[in-house]
């Protein structure tokens, strides 16, 4: 059992969080910590994981009790230090952002999963058996010999969860574990967590939105602006009106800014349905589209084997056309080739055969950078995309690299930041921002260059309800303004609400298309 009693917590900016929060998690319990970006859920997860942040200038006042042993913190330099090795043997933690959690000491998925138990001296035979069991439960067995650094986003996420589950902790804390996972993988992870719970492990899951389903007896603790606003059963939480705190429910369609309806209706040959604020899907089912901005003809692509027994999935005979004004969702299981397909649109990958035409430009041997004014790309892993030392420099990079003058580049960057609501953070370092803010910086970076085609890889992963709705508005407005959007996503509700059409990929082939009804 773990009990957190927080009087207050503050990072080095001094803003108090988690004031007066008391949380007890009992063996076998399933607790969802729900909250919008900046609500303090990651801070709470890190405290449960024994990371008080004292070495980074954070101040925590309160206590943490684990299995009857209480550690008190007064926010002074004389506070006790938690032994991370001893603590993590009982409390396992899966943070956000799978890439940063790789040990970088493992060449295969099997070794990566085994890293924790091997650190604790589990004998090799038992180690291999444990890894085999967890890999089978999370459908990772075919990937055990793959390099973890070359997995798809969803496969990597499952690997990191497997690495935590294999430690058989007393308490397992997961910060947005279902981010970027397909439906089957979500069920596999849920089943693995249930198996742990049956053995008495308590599971704490942080989510930006309330899940529509959770194990029986699941409890929700909702946070807003660093303070608890709800503590009760999930079904009560779903009826508690938490949307006013920016906490939506997974599966809800995004809300679209009513102001966009006017823009959209001007371009639509068929009047849209009567607009209902907060609920109306953004798409226009019956509209006619302009000529194609994206044309893929019989595209086939293979990754180099790189010595791996099972190389990544490529593409086989992909045909796709996306018109101006259209939003197309690319859907399919993890590792089906969605990101690969998207990276053909901006020339990061080049087709082995077939052709790719974007914005009227046939992609042949021209440099990738030359296509940036036509296609903007949002990477699945935001932290791989950000490389400058201030937010403004980051967002200005695209305009400057594509020929804008310095003043013009800064102006376009400032405008893009205003559009995503980050105008006040121009001078912050991207790494100081929250996950959702970093995601928005990456999006603003794309927007500032002004490309007509947006290729977005899992744009809603990890977003809270207000940001998800803002994104829906931005995409719809871009399409209404004559642009095209191609997004790879597992967020069915978002795709159904925003996209005009979904294509389904499996093993690098298009297996079907569904048009919005």
């Amino acid at each position, binding site marked *: 059992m773990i009990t957190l009693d927080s009087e207050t917590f503050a990072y080095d900016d001094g803003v108090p969080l988690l004031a007066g929060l008391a949380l007890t998690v009992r063996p076998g319990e399933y607790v969802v910590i729900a909250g919008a970006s900046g609500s303090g859920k990651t801070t709470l997860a890190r405290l449960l994981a024994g990371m008080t942040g004292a070495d980074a200038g954070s101040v925590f006042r309160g206590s943490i009790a684990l299995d009857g042993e209480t550690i008190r913190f007064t926010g002074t330099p004389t506070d006790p230090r938690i032994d*991370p090795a001893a603590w*993590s043997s009982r409390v*396992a933690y899966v943070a956000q952002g799978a890439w940063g959690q790789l040990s970088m000491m493992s060449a295969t998925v099997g070794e990566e999963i085994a890293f924790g138990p091997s650190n604790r001296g589990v004998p090799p035979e038992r180690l291999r058996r444990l890894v085999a069991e967890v890999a089978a439960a999370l459908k990772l067995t075919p990937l055990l010999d793959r390099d973890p650094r070359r997995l798809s986003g969803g496969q990597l996420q499952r690997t990191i969860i497997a690495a935590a589950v294999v430690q058989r902790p007393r308490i397992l804390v997961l910060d947005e574990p279902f981010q970027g996972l397909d439906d089957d993988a979500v069920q596999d992870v849920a089943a693995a967590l249930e198996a742990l719970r049956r053995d008495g492990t308590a599971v704490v899951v942080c989510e930006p939105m309330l899940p529509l389903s959770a194990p029986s007896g699941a409890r929700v603790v909702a946070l807003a602006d660093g303070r608890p606003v709800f503590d009760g059963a999930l079904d009560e939480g779903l009826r508690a009106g938490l949307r006013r705190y920016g906490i939506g429910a997974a599966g809800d369609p995004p809300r679209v800014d009513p102001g966009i309806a006017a823009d959209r209706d001007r371009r639509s040959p068929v009047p849209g349905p009567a607009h209902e604020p907060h609920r109306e899907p953004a798409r226009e089912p019956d509209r006619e589209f302009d000529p194609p901005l994206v044309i893929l003809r019989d595209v086939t692509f293979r990754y180099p084997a790189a010595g791996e027994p099972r190389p990544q999935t490529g593409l086989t005979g992909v045909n796709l056309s996306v018109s101006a004004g259209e939003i197309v969702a690319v859907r399919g299981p993890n590792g089906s080739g969605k990101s690969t397909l998207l990276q053909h649109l901006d020339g990061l990958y080049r087709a082995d055969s077939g052709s790719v035409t974007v914005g009227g430009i046939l992609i042949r041997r021209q*440099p990738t*950078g030359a296509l940036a004014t036509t296609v*903007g790309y949002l990477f699945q892993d935001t932290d791989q995309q950000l490389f400058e030392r201030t937010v403004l420099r980051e967002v200005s990079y695209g305009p400057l*690299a594509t020929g804008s003058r310095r003043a013009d580049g800064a102006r376009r960057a400032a405008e893009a930041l205003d559009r995503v609501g980050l105008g006040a953070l121009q001078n912050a370092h991207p790494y100081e921002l929250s996950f959702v803010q970093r995601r928005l910086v990456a999006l603003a970076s794309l927007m500032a260059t002004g490309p007509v085609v947006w290729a977005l890889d899992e744009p809603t992963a990890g977003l809270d309800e207000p940001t998800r709705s803002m994104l829906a508005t931005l995409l719809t407005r871009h399409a209404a303004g004559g642009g095209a959007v191609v997004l790879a996503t597992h967020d069915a509700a978002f795709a159904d609400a925003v996209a005009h059409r979904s294509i389904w990929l499996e093993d690098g082939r298009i297996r079907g298309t569904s048009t919005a009804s």
Partner: protein
Amino acid sequence: MPRRRIYNPLTELLAAVLLVVLVLVVNRWEFSLAVLVFGVLPAVLLSGRARQIGLAIVLVAGPLLLSSLLLHGLFFPEGSTVLVDLGIARVTAEGLTFAAGMGLRMTVFTGVLLTAAMTMDIPELLATMTHRGWNRKLVFIVGSAVGLLPHVALRAQQVTRAQQARGLVVGRAPLSRFRALVAVTTPLVIGLLVDASERNSMLEARGFSSPGARTSYLPDTDTPHQRRARRAMVAVVGVFSAAWLVIAAVA
């Protein structure tokens, strides 16, 4: 094609380190040249990655050679045979000889160590060290040092791809490639530092600092024969080095 592996990576790494020790101890250009021609060169050519290793050696050893040449070639205090007098600097035969000897040694060091590092099966090396009961932090340091190059290369590739997606044009001309290299350097270093600090806490969260012996998921590929060979190599090089230094001191 990658080369066929004959020896355990720990044996290979030890051989590379001992070769460096011998070059340092013997300290003669003839020996350094012999190691370069009969040791490093065949190893690079047979590595299956001759182009990448050759490029890495040029990138690392090139600046070292240049600085050695400038420093010792122009400013060698003991130099008496003046070839060119430039006023504040003098090019002397002794200085050039010294610079050539130093440069040769540095080339051998970088050649031996880079060839070993870039052909090493790192997971097998770490597994062997773990099975042999080495200190886990030492294993991590060795693993990080040897594995740094591929990690940096991967991170640099990610940053470059992100920059290209935002408009960086990398042409085929050397100047364009150099500009791309400069553009990637700052974000690469910052990214690696941030990675390192985040990874440290994540390693802790996965029990990396646990007391007691660590185990390995990979099987032990080391053999008693190779363990004996490693001990013998250390003993032979140790005795030879001691004898060489004593003889040199007496002479």
